[in-house]
């Protein structure tokens, strides 16, 4: 399946893009992250959460394929 990954804040700086696509055949968020790390090894050192369909998920969550975003620590307000 073809997935679109969004990067925000510091993470968009590290990847030098705000959104990119990956061809991916795994099931879990953790597997997706391994695929992303192959392209962007520096992300491994960064603190972030993953949102799927705008909800924070864990590494063990199954991928449903919609709206995946990597979010650095929040600093609103």
């Amino acid at each position: 399946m073809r997935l679109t990954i969004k990067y925000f804040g510091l993470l968009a700086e590290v990847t030098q893009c705000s959104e990119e696509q990956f061809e991916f055949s795994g099931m879990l968020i953790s597997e997706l992250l391994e695929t992303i790390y192959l392209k962007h090894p520096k992300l491994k050192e960064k603190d972030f959460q993953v949102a799927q369909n705008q909800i924070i998920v864990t590494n063990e969550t199954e991928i449903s394929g919609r709206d995946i975003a990597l979010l650095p620590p929040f600093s609103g307000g």
Partner: protein
Amino acid sequence: MNNKKPKNVFKDGAISSEFIANSIAKHQSKTSIGAHNIFLGQVRADIIDDKTVLDIEYTAYEDMANAKFHDIREAAFSKFDLTCMHIYHSLGKVNTGEICMFVFVSSPRRKEVFKAIEFIVEEIKANVPVFGKEIFEDKTHQWKVNT
């Protein structure tokens, strides 16, 4: 006020004192209100490693952020006896000394607004995907982290 679609909470740039005044004035027709509480976030000229912050550039995962603001709003209305609630957050550049967040709650009774304002602000800080890039005088930057 329930079950509405998420509104857009974001405003381009700083939130002006005139905007806040106008928002206060609009509540004078709501004569069941006895107490308002307003929280304003202001950009600090923090000094980090001898460099002073000049401004913050805010970005957000806007769709998720507006959905989270909506959830926080619904939760606050169900927890507290509120007549009105308004939340605004800046996107883009906000200079030091300018307002980047405006949270406004109103209730017949004061006890409710104290509890509500703190709940809402803490929820926003913890759960809304907004990202602040602190720009220093020499154009270097760092990414802000809420504490």
